[in-house]
């Protein structure tokens, strides 16, 4: 059963608006694949095209090597879990799960056996006769999964199915979904704007913005080696420092960061960023470590230091989040300090105090400066890439 | 239109939908009306004369109304009486609708609405007939008034338009109460409280806050009541006397006693024009659209 999905130069236009712009992608059979992006990035459109609810304006979608052009929704080897689940409220749990088999003319006995097997799979034995309206949110979720699996899809499409659940249940369902995917071996295509969901469950994640793919990679690579400024800012937190390349040695680059002095960083992708290139250096908050003031930093860390003035400190339990401003440029800087800082050091972090921070250039990434994302000042969330 | 339907329901079902809609709107709604207008514009001819030289369009059937003093008087009487019935019904219904929507508790309102619906389920003829009994010369109302000493001799309620109007207000009251109730109910209680708070009296609160908000409901109720009153046959036939004929009765006579369908069609069309005219007037005065009416 080949559950691979292939998109070839797919374009989706609604009037003048281009929702998906020439996208090509291959998703392997049995993969847990996520599309991650802010709302309006086109991920739902993409899912609807794979599921057959929308016909692409251009390009081709194929599933299991078979082109899907002209194949209607009810004939595709896909099944969707809708955001609001769309369980049939007038039917029992059994009737819901058996619906797909019933319309295919499968006999009652086989249907019931399948439904019971699937209810066991989603750990919901014994509720078959109940009406779906009597179930809790988590139970409904499981029924929706069982209903979709009943038609033995090659590809399961999940449209932010956890967004309606409360936080705790959502985290529980993540591992559950992952376990079900492993057990069944079906290709899962999952769309979400929640990076936590995407990173924890997926084999690979595609980050999307404005109808285009920004990067397709496994979660670890996505986090440590973002390919674009958008990904660097959207996935996890990142501090962004504008600079100019002085020179380059392999992956290492020396940067002129103006008033911040000379900094070092690692070139993320293989793009040839030579001397003089306008770049942005991305340093994650948890990579910044306090160093003694006045030194040029720990030699092992490569010698880059940043001096900032503390604005506020919030204690989050396992770590301290320090909001600071870079001396010189005045840019905001977020620093996450873990258990390695002493109590007395933490107590000394009061607003107005200067702090000197070092980092390991190998854990940073330097990217060309185009495509810098716009960050909402109020919420700190990435709104959309400015010029992609 | 077929494409949009077919995308949702598939070809066969969409074809059935369009066929049913088409039969209804064309064969049952539009063509009969057009045919009626066509009839009204032709002279009443013997079958043999149809298609002959005399068969042509003419306004003669309409001229009849204006030439006939009695018919003309009845036409305008029907118009004014229907307006009066409409206003009376509005006056009677408004306090009740206000009570249901804003004064009564939820349980009281639910009970009242059920009580209101029950007579509505009962035949218009029967409801009118009950009034016939009450208003009869030797009926209970006269007996009661005599007993109370308010009158010396029984009154002939059923000889003028009075009985007809009482019966009509009774028969159509629900078509006024429900639109009014729906409209007033959607008014935010705080608006009323705010008006009171600012020192507005009851009358002013209603005039400035409640009535403007209830406009679509008032318009709907008035349009429905007027249409039902002007088009009523049962109530004047049962409660009216020969001296208080309604325009619908004249139309009926053209069809089934005068045997002049063309003339009857012209009168029927005039009645329709009257109703459409009233509706347009109300919709303009209250600044409401058709979408507000069908609720």
């Amino acid at each position, binding site marked *: 059963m080949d559950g691979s999905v292939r998109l070839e130069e797919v374009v989706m236009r609604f009037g003048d608006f281009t929702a998906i712009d020439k996208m090509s992608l291959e998703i392997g059979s049995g993969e847990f694949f996520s599309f991650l992006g802010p709302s309006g990035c086109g991920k739902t459109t993409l899912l609807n095209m794979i599921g057959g609810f929308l016909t692409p304006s251009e390009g081709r979608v194929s599933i299991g090597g078979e082109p899907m052009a002209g194949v209607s929704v009810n004939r595709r080897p896909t099944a969707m879990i809708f955001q609001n689940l769309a369980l049939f409220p007038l039917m029992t749990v059994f009737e819901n799960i058996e619906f797909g088999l019933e319309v295919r003319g499968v006999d009652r006995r086989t249907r019931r056996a399948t439904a019971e097997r699937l209810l066991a799979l989603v750990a919901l034995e014994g509720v078959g006769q109940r009406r779906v309206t009597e179930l809790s949110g988590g139970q409904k979720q499981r029924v929706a999964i069982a209903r979709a699996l009943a038609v033995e899809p090659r590809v399961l499409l999940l449209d932010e199915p956890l967004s309606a659940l409360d936080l705790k249940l959502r985290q529980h369902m993540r591992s559950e979904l992952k376990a079900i995917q492993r057990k069944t071996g079906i290709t899962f295509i999952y769309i979400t704007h929640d990076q936590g969901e995407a990173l924890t469950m997926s084999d690979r994640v595609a980050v999307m913005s404005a109808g285009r793919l920004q990067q397709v990679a496994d979660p670890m690579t996505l986090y440590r080696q973002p390919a674009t400024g958008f990904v660097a800012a959207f996935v996890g937190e990142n501090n962004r420092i504008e600079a100019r390349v002085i020179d380059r040695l392999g992956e290492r680059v020396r940067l002129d960061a103006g008033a911040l002095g000379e900094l070092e960083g690692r070139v993320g992708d293989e793009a040839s960023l030579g001397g003089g290139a306008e770049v942005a250096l991305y340093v994650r908050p948890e990579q910044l470590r306090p160093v003694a003031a006045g030194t040029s930093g720990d030699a092992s860390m490569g010698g880059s230091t940043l001096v900032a003035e503390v604005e506020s400190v919030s204690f989050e339990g396992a770590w301290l989040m320090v909001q600071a401003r870079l001396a010189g440029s005045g840019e905001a800087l977020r620093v996450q300090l873990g258990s390695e800082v002493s109590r007395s050091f933490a107590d000394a972090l009061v607003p107005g105090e200067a702090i000197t921070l070092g980092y390991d250039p190998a854990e940073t990434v330097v990217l060309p400066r185009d495509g810098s994302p716009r960050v909402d000042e109020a919420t700190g969330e990435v709104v959309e890439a400015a010029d992609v | 239109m077929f494409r949009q339907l077919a995308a949702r329901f598939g070809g066969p079902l969409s074809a059935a939908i369009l066929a049913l809609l088409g039969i209804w709107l064309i064969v049952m709604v539009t063509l009969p009306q057009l045919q009626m207008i066509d009839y009204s514009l032709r002279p009443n001819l013997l079958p043999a004369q149809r298609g002959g030289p005399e068969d042509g369009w003419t306004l003669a059937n309409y001229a009849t109304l204006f030439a006939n003093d009695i018919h003309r008087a009845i036409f305008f009487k029907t118009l004014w009486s229907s307006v009066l019935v409409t206003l009376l019904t509005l006056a009677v219904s408004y306090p009740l609708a206000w009570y249901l929507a804003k004064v009564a508790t939820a349980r009281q309102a639910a009970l009242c609405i059920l009580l209101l619906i029950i007579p509505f389920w009962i035949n218009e003829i029967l409801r009118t007939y009950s009034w016939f009994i009450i208003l009869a010369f030797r009926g209970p109302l006269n007996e009661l008034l005599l007993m109370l000493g308010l009158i010396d001799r029984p009154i002939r309620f059923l000889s003028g338009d009075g009985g007809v109007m009482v019966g009509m207000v009774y028969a159509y009251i629900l078509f006024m109460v429900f639109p009014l109730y729906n409209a007033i109910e959607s008014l935010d209680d705080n608006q009323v409280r705010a008006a009171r708070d600012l020192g507005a009296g009851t009358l002013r609160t209603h005039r400035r806050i409640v009535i403007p908000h209830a406009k679509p409901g008032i318009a709907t109720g008035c349009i429905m009541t007027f249409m039902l009153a002007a088009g009523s046959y049962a109530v004047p036939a049962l409660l009216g006397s020969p001296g208080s004929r309604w325009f*619908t009765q004249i139309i009926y006579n053209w069809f089934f006693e005068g045997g002049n369908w063309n003339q009857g069609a012209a009168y029927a069309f005039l009645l329709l024009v009257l109703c459409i005219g009233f509706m347009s007037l109300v919709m303009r005065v209250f600044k409401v659209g058709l979408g507000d009416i069908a609720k």
Partner: protein
Amino acid sequence: MSSQRLLGWALRGYVVVFFAYLFLPLVVMAAATFNDSRFPTVTPWDGTTLKWFGELAADGAMWQALTNSAIVATGVLLLAVPIGIATALFLNTVSSRAKPFLYALILSPLLTPGVIIGISTLIFWRQWGVGGGIFLTVVGQATFIAAYVMLMVTARLQRFDRTMERAALDLGASQWQMFRRILLPYLRPAILSAAVIAFLQSFENYNTTLFVVGYDTTLTVYIASKVRTGLTPAVNALGLILILVTVLLAAAYELKRRREAARVAGV
């Protein structure tokens, strides 16, 4: 404040008077059934009797009219309900520049006096050689009753979550299966209500029926003719029975509706 309170009591008093006005006529009519008088009245009371029920039962023309009414109402049900459902589905699905015009046309039977619907139906069918009778009565009544059905079905259809349709198709259902298994069951309560209303509306219709009924007679037409000609309290007996039947039907329908509402609310 005290004038406010006075107004409040005046309003309550008004409500009581209003309901008395609403029910008194029906009570009077019912009471007259049991009066042993040749005329339908409660004054003077000539003694209590049940003979008018017997007289009614022996009235063959009444039974014929009742049968005709039942036939007509069934016919209207079969014609108006499918049309109303189809129209509601049409309005819910199609978006077109012609829609406001079509909508006005669809509503027009509700805003047209019943006599005119009867007249135009009578005139239209004459050219095909169809005269007044049961068939035309069905057609004439269905013309405006279909619009009531449409309104009731539309009200429920507007609350339908269309993701449900997508889900059904996604699970492999054909469009017809989706309609049969998902949409139609969802609309069922509204369709049943509409069917009850359609039946009753047909049963009690007079204005339209009068013009298209021809030499046949429906119960309403029969009662009206009795009122004008040979009036006896047998008419009251018939009225009383009809009132009891309708009240029982209405109560049953209302009870069912409330139970349904409670079930949905409890969800």
